């Protein structure tokens, strides 16, 4: 073994060092892009599944299974494109370090989508996490999306970045070449230099990363738009397959990374608790991680001393304070029965299950009371609730 002694490495055309070696044995890297927290996607390796690891009958838009991943379909205009089971699969690309993939399994086919039908697999990103992309400036940066995908249905698929703030979008196509074989895809998107079309610097949805899995003519009758432009609906998903055309179809995905630059670097693996914490900004429940909502259990439930004549009250503070918005939805469960819309009271030895009365919640707490049930303030009593709160964007 020998030691190379040098003070720095520098590209011949560069005016400053790429890597500088310090006399104390450390070094400094002049990184063009972040080397940690580089992945703009949360839960890209499908580690966290707070809602369900096996969601059946999925045919409406929303969040059904893996955290942060939305199922997008037309709830009103044309109807859903197929019905699906979304599940946590251990079918993963070999020797890449991923433990799970998300599997989309078609259970009701739609071989002839109506014009307005569509099917998306999607993640939504807050604008405040995208400011370093410099979108809407002459210095707008390229981004690279990489992911592993597998399907029995080969052919052309469409992937899209959608700017919600300015209603602009860019689409690219990729192909699944070999049936039922894991393939890694790397797709580079230009930066959007169109002046003033910046992402809002706030905590709302600014960018949608959309995997199109099928669409009707409304979204596919034009010419695929492969550069940033104002949205023309007909140009969003041209030439893509319809994954929903057969109940034999299934589609797996994992290892999703969106990063600044025009090179797909190695996937950024994070500890489970770090990913869970990120996900809990968007969804949180009191039940234990692997326990389904509505399960009869007191594990994880919030307890409170009960007060108030006739109107027993319970207040719970969430364990995490990472949000600046009230929940989109709040569901309260009775730990004693598993019933939603109920609270539990231990009333001096008697189990009471009360329907909920007045309920208030903020970004970090919920207070609720049982409806008038002649509760006696003088009794020894305590109550308990479970909750699930959705903060998705």
């Amino acid at each position, binding site marked *: 073994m020998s030691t190379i002694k040098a003070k720095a490495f520098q590209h011949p055309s560069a005016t400053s060092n790429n890597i500088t070696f310090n006399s104390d044995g450390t070094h400094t890297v002049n990184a063009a892009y972040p080397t940690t927290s580089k992945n703009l996607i949360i839960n890209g390796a499908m580690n966290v599944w707070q809602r369900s690891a096996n969601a059946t009958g999925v045919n*409406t*838009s*929303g969040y059904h299974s893996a955290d942060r991943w939305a199922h997008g379909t037309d*709830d*009103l205009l044309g109807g859903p494109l197929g019905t699906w089971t979304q599940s946590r699969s251990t079918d993963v690309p070999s020797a890449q370090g991923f433990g799970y993939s998300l599997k989309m399994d078609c259970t009701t086919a739609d071989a002839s989508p109506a014009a307005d039908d569509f099917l998306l697999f999607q993640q939504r990103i807050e604008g405040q996490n995208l400011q370093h992309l410099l979108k809407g400036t002459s210095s707008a940066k390229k981004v690279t999306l990489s992911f592993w995908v597998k399907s029995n249905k080969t052919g052309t698929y469409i992937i899209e970045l959608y700017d919600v703030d300015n209603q602009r979008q860019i689409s690219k196509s990729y192909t699944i070449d070999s049936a039922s074989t894991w393939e890694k895809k790397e797709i580079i998107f230009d930066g959007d230099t169109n002046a003033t079309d910046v992402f809002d610097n706030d905590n*709302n949805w600014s960018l949608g990363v959309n995997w199109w899995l099928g669409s009707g003519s409304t979204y596919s009758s034009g010419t695929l738009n492969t550069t940033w432009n104002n949205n023309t609906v007909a140009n969003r998903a041209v030439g893509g397959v319809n994954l929903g055309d057969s109940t034999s179809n299934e589609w797996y995905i994992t290892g999703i990374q969106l990063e600044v630059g025009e090179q797909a670097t190695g996937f950024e693996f994070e500890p489970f608790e770090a990913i869970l914490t990120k996900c809990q900004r968007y969804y949180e429940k009191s039940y234990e991680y692997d326990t389904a*909502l*509505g399960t009869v259990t007191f594990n994880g439930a919030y307890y409170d001393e009960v007060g108030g004549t006739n109107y027993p009250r319970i207040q719970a503070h969430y364990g995490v304070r990472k949000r600046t*918005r*009230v*929940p*989109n*939805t*709040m*569901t*309260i469960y009775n730990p004693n029965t598993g019933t*939603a*819309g109920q609270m539990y009271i231990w009333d001096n030895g008697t189990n009471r299950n009360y329907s*909920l009365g*007045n*309920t*208030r*919640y903020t970004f970090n707490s919920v207070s609720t009371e049982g409806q008038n049930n002649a509760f006696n303030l003088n009794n020894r009593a305590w109550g308990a609730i479970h909750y699930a709160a*959705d903060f*998705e*964007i």
Partner: protein
Amino acid sequence: MIFTNAKYETDLFTGENDKIIVEIDGVITFVSISEDNWVYKKIKKQVEAGELTIADEE
């Protein structure tokens, strides 16, 4: 998401309708009234399409 039995709920402090109580796929759920809320926006679309009615608080 299938919405049924929707009704407004008034906040005790402010006296304003700040949320909707609705069954989502049969589960009683509170939905915050906010234009930033993706669930509320879905409810609003269904109301505008005449597919859902939100009752006043009893």
